[in-house]
């Protein structure tokens, strides 16, 4: 059995892999599918949603159907987004140990230490990055926050849609929300959270490139293929850490 390395501040860097890389199937299909079907609708939703907030293209006569089309696309991609979100939530309970909910909720001291390590790395207080097979603890809580924001977007979005659509099912499901918060503030919330997605995407792409560069394990490709190339001893260490939890 290998000795568990202390994940502590100032830990030594492993500049080069100490053992040959092993091909590991880290991100299962539902994780990858939900990733892209969350991302793409967010792009569409942001564009159409911003147009609905501020119709920056103004039609001049003719037979256009601009706003109505934008609203239609917004609603349809909204439901695609909800489906992908639900798939990911389901996979919190069905997925492997890297995509399971346990990897996200910071319930263990190890995860809090890991967050400290990442904060130290990002703020240049330590030179080196602690390598991870799955998500590092800081990334995991960030994703958890984003999932929460997505849930708020879904709830506020459904509440706004129920006001337009009426019917009997939707108002029963979500009718409590407009009674709790005035519709104008629901709209404000729905709008403002969009910018947190913008900020997140910038940070997410940047940190993925950065960490992929540091770990040299095919992190970027892994969201397309599911596979990472992890040094054998890192993999063993990861398994041992998870078993110890």
């Amino acid at each position, binding site marked *: 059995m290998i000795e568990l390395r202390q994940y502590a501040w100032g830990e030594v860097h492993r*500049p*080069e892999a100490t053992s040959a890389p092993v091909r590991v199937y880290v991100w299962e299909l539902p994780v990858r599918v939900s990733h892209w079907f969350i991302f793409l609708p967010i792009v569409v939703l942001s564009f159409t949603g911003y147009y609905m907030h501020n119709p920056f293209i103004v039609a001049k006569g003719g037979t256009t159907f601009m*706003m109505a089309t934008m609203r239609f696309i917004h609603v349809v991609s909204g439901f695609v987004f909800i489906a992908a979100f639900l798939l990911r939530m389901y996979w919190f309970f069905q997925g492997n140990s890297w995509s399971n909910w346990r990897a996200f909720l910071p319930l263990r001291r190890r995860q809090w230490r890991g967050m400290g390590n990442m904060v130290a790395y990002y703020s240049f207080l330590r030179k080196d990055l602690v390598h991870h097979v799955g998500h590092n603890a800081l990334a995991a809580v960030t994703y958890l926050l984003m999932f929460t924001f997505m849930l708020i977007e879904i709830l506020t979005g459904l509440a706004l849609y129920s006001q337009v659509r009426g019917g009997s099912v939707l108002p029963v499901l979500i009718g409590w929300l407009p009674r709790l918060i005035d*519709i*104008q503030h629901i709209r404000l919330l729905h709008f403002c959270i969009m910018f947190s997605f913008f900020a997140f995407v910038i940070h997410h792409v940047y940190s993925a490139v950065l960490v992929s560069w540091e770990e040299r394990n095919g992190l970027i490709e892994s969201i397309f293929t599911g596979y990472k190339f992890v040094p054998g001893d890192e993999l063993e260490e990861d398994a041992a850490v998870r078993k110890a939890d």
Partner: protein
Amino acid sequence: MLPSNQTLSGALQQKGVNRRRFVKFCTAMVATLALPPRYVAQVAAALEKARKPVLVWLQFQDCAGNSESILRSSHPSVLEVVLDLLSWEYHELVMAGAGHQAEAALERVVREEKGKFIAVVEGAIPLADGGVYCTIGGRTAWDIARHVCGSAAATIAAGDCAWDGGLVRANPNPTGAVGIEEAVPGAKVINLGGCPQNPANTAAVLVHYLTFGELPAMDQFNRPLFAYGRIIHDQCERRANYDAGRFVQEWGDEGHRKGWCLYKMGCKGPQATFNCPSVRWNDGTSWPVKAGHGCLGCASHRFWDTRSPFYDRLPTVPGFGADVTAGEIGLGVTAAVAGATVIHGIASAVRDRMRPPASPEPPTKA
């Protein structure tokens, strides 16, 4: 003369209102109530037989706008018919009596018609400091409201101030003003929001009450569904321009002159429910959006706070000034993150250069 035992048909005949005019009124009321036309006969029959109920109209922290609204409407002959529909015993703005005489009339109604009369309240009721900010004849509005509305068969809150505190309650609400429902929790209240309320709706509620003996179906704010059940945006005549993407960009621009949608000018029609576009004002002549101004959402709950700024689609973000929009804040945050990322990227590249070279040992395992 109280109680009045005269029936409506008798009163109307005395006044010279002919049958044709009366049925026209009933038809307008049935349409306002969103009932099928076959109810016209039922409504007419019920109104003809109805014994004139007593009505008192109380005014507290108000501008008399709701009184003006009902008195100035000729459609649907409200002045003629509704005034005759009820025995109007107390209304500060229009009554002839004054001082102790007038207060005695009110007192008599509460005593003799207990549980039978209808109270209409206009204006908010201040609760701060024991309610001293509005007193009539030495009694606080709060006291009068509890006394009168507590004894009424039903209370109609006419206008926003009586419903949710309205303008008087708008932030920071120095007098602790509230609507009638909050001031008199036990009272049976029907709220007619709007600034002012639409007299056609007031009349329709009274007609419904006289015809069916109960108040119409209501929503979560105790507003009648027939008047507050539909979104303004869905009834708006500019809606086709909205769907097409034709928006007024500036007051008086080409789009404004052509009657395009007022969405970008801050119209709250999509977030407001009211039958304003169909019932309209001044004999059904017009309503704000038709006149070229965006909807303020005046019939929405606490609209002075929730629907402002009136010329912007979204509320301002708490903690930021009134001139900063949510969009500007959001774009600012996004730009800041982008900037920080670029700086961090450069710093990370520098760090990579400063690292000691990799150890020369080859990997141990094959």
